[in-house]
């Protein structure tokens, strides 16, 4: 549909037709080039299958894999369920209801996004652990600590991931509800649906793309994580990857395990696409004037307590704990912290901008011509998000070294071109965070209905005008969201940064890793606080933007 109208209109506007004609020919090429580059780090993983170690597989299968699969299964279930519950219910609460403190919570509930899971993990564990402040407090007031449950299990780990990742579901749900949830819910209510029925039978299916996308991000990040699970000594599938590599010195087996993880993710993505089928929900009619229902009664209180608890556990408490540690240990940081901060920010800005360009090309190619193969190419370009960062980094490093080696032997000169330097690192960020950048831009684009463009064309707007007065203003919110989310994600990124950064390009996350891996949790608090502080600004801006 889209395609036809655009082509018709471009034929009508005969001026500059040639330019669009040329561009439309290259879009497919660009798309496949992007796919190829994004799959580059997977090549070394695939080659690993030539080097099987059956005896090691036997061992892993006998002693590790059943337990790891069950751990991973429960973790995914709990984190998925938890993030859905918290993200959706809080988005519903904020969009549909009014209560004291709403204006604080509506952005406060996004803030946990600024705290990476590994920081939340060591902070909350440090707070509740033996000899931690909580236990000291409980002993001081005479309550004792014997009744405290151990948090180093699937529930504790799931809580960490849920608290630090639910904002993805919340963010996407909130804007989906603002766009279409409210209208349909209210129409359903006037047609006599009960509240529950209107919510579950109408709002949830209608907003499905939003919460599915949110859950996808949450679960992929959970599957790829190694930092938080290591702090809790909780074994997931990723643990087996690292164990094969670090413990058994078998990089091949590690790569093979990573392939299996990736295959699993790719299959789930396909199943979800297939399940959604061709059905598409377009918003009809005009959004109703905003009206928020006041929260009343004991139920209202309960809901409010719930919302504040999430905010407190996911943000306030960890930040206070970090600040206490940071104040206690700040003189241990002599120099260089500001340099780390500026490196972190430069990398985040540059990577976010370039990734945005790549995501933009993909969105544009999809808009030009929708086909199964293009959709597949777009989907598979984004698989990097599900890959544990270190595995991705090794893949990139090996692939680029092959290329470097090729160049070296071809021209007979020794040296490194692609594999060292910022190129490799930025490439890693692009491949890892393309999913974060693509989603918001694509969703903005999908809201520009062909009829709007047609209307502009019939009013005599040429291509230049349509770009500047239709596409760009309507895409802007999505572009901003993508940029800011990627900025925050790149800042938090650790494993790829660690492996691919050029000399002198340490970031805050790298410093935090160095300190925590030596067990110096408290000293790591200062860079952690800085990281969170820089992450908060874009998050707040994000909220402000989506409010107006």
């Amino acid at each position: 549909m889209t395609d036809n109208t655009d082509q018709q209109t471009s034929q009508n506007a005969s001026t500059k037709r040639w330019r669009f004609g040329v561009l439309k020919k290259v879009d497919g090429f660009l798309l496949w080039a992007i796919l190829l580059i994004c799959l580059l780090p997977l090549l070394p993983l695939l080659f690993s299958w030539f080097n099987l170690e059956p005896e090691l597989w036997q061992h892993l299968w006998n002693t590790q894999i059943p337990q790891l699969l069950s751990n991973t299964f429960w973790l995914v279930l709990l984190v998925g369920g938890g993030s859905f519950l918290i993200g959706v219910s809080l988005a519903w609460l904020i969009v549909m209801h009014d209560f004291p403190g709403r204006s604080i919570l509506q952005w406060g509930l996004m803030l946990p996004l600024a705290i990476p899971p590994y920081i939340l993990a060591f902070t909350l564990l440090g707070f509740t652990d033996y000899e931690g402040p909580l236990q000291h407090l409980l002993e001081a007031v005479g309550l004792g600590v014997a009744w405290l449950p151990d948090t180093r299990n699937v529930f504790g780990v799931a809580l960490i991931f849920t608290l630090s990742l639910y904002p993805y579901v919340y963010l996407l749900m909130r804007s989906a509800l603002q766009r279409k949830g409210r209208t349909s819910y209210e129409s359903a209510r006037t047609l006599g649906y009960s509240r529950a029925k209107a919510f579950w039978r109408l709002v949830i299916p209608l907003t499905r793309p939003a919460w599915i996308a949110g859950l996808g991000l949450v679960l992929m990040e959970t599957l790829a994580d190694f930092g938080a699970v290591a702090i809790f000594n909780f074994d997931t599938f990723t643990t087996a990857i690292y164990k094969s590599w670090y413990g058994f010195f078998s990089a091949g087996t590690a790569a093979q395990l990573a392939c299996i993880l990736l295959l699993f993710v790719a299959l789930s993505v396909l199943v979800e696409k297939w399940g959604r089928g061709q059905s598409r929900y377009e918003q009809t009619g005009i959004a109703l004037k905003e009206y928020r229902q006041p929260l009343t009664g004991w139920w209202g209180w309960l809901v409010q307590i719930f919302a504040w608890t999430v905010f407190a556990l996911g943000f306030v408490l960890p930040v206070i704990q970090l600040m206490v540690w940071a104040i206690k240990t700040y003189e241990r940081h002599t120099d260089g912290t500001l340099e780390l901060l500026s490196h972190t920010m430069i990398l985040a800005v540059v990577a976010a901008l370039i990734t945005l360009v790549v995501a933009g090309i993909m969105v544009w190619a999809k808009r030009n011509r929708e086909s199964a193969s293009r959709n597949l190419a777009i989907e598979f370009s984004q698989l990097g998000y599900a890959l544990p960062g270190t595995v991705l980094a090794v893949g990139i490093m090996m692939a680029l070294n092959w290329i470097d080696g090729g160049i070296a032997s071809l021209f007979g000169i020794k040296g490194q071109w692609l594999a060292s330097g910022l190129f490799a690192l930025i490439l890693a960020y692009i491949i890892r965070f393309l999913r974060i950048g693509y989603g918001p831009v694509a969703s903005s684009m999908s809201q520009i209905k062909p009829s709007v463009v047609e209307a502009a064309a019939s009013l005599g707007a040429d291509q230049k005008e349509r770009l500047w007065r239709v596409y760009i203003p309507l895409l802007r919110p999505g572009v901003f969201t993508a940029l800011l989310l990627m900025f925050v994600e790149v800042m938090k990124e650790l494993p790829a940064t660690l492996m691919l950064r050029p000399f002198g390009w340490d970031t805050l996350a790298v410093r935090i890793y160095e300190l925590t891996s030596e067990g110096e949790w408290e000293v790591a608090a200062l860079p952690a606080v800085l990281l969170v502080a820089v992450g908060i600004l874009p998050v707040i801006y994000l909220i402000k933007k989506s409010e107006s």
Partner: protein
Amino acid sequence: MKKTWLTGLSASVLLVLSACSDESAQSNDSQVKTPEAQTTDQAPENNTPIVVYTSRKEHLVKPFFEQFTAETGIDIQYITDSEAALISRLKAEGERTPADVLITVDAGNLWLATQEDVLQPIESPVLEASIPESLQDPENHWFGLTVRARTIVYSTERVKPEELTTYEALGDEQWNGRLCLRTSKKVYNQSLVAMLIARYGEEKTQQIVESWVSNLATDSFSNDTKVMNAITAGVCDVGIVNTYYFGRLQNETPDIPLALFWPDQSEEGYGVHVNVSGAGITKHSDNQQNALKLIEWLASEEAQQMFAGLNMEYPANKNVEPTEEVAAWGKFKADSTNLSKAGELQPAAVKLMDRAGYR
């Protein structure tokens, strides 16, 4: 229009990028070069900077590199990462690697680096004279620089030192529900168990590890400090830790009710399990002369004293004494089995711990 917009954006991005790399190059220079550097130059004909890959963390290596540059005028560029990552990187880079020196902790990793053929043998009478035989690779691919002991820590409130004897005795009935351990995923424990295999063979070692597991008071911890916190809090009474973690805790809380015990000290005992951090020259180094100079300097008495003070480790150099704090923990007999065994037997050790259910 869109095209120009994209070109403009990518052009500006490239600009920023190139500006950044310039800046980093400058700041790197200023970081390690000091004024004295030019004056105390010993080898004016070769000032080629050394590139170091290190898994020792920045705050534990930077002071040494600065001191070395000040004394010799040779700049050092370095990158920190985990051991396996650095070794993979060296392998992938092959002869194109910029690295000259690899510094890592744990003999297991040094053994792996040798195995993966990324290090070259070092011929150095200086190092041979100062570093004991058991702390260096039999074929001289690496030399130990600092020594840490992995030993027993106990609660002074609930345990008498007379009750303790050996590592394996921690599996005895009397410690049921009183033992805390760090995760088996940490290379320190993998090396410890590998050395037990070297002593007793797989079968007996598996029995020992199984008896430890059945004595555990709670799930294993992610680091040594948490093990000691659990003992202080009364969750358990004994554990196994690296000496310097204990030292750090003791520095923060001088009256902490914990103490170290040296196991296996009897006449026929094997002694305390020690491990090293160490260094080697990369196989494809372009700058072997200065690389060797750096490693010899790190083994020198001056640098060894710094090492001992900075992280409360034992100097590898026979002629240097540990700091007063560290010496106060007492003298002990160390296991003299060559440390390359720790790497050789590491995969077997990890499998064994998996089978024994030690997480």
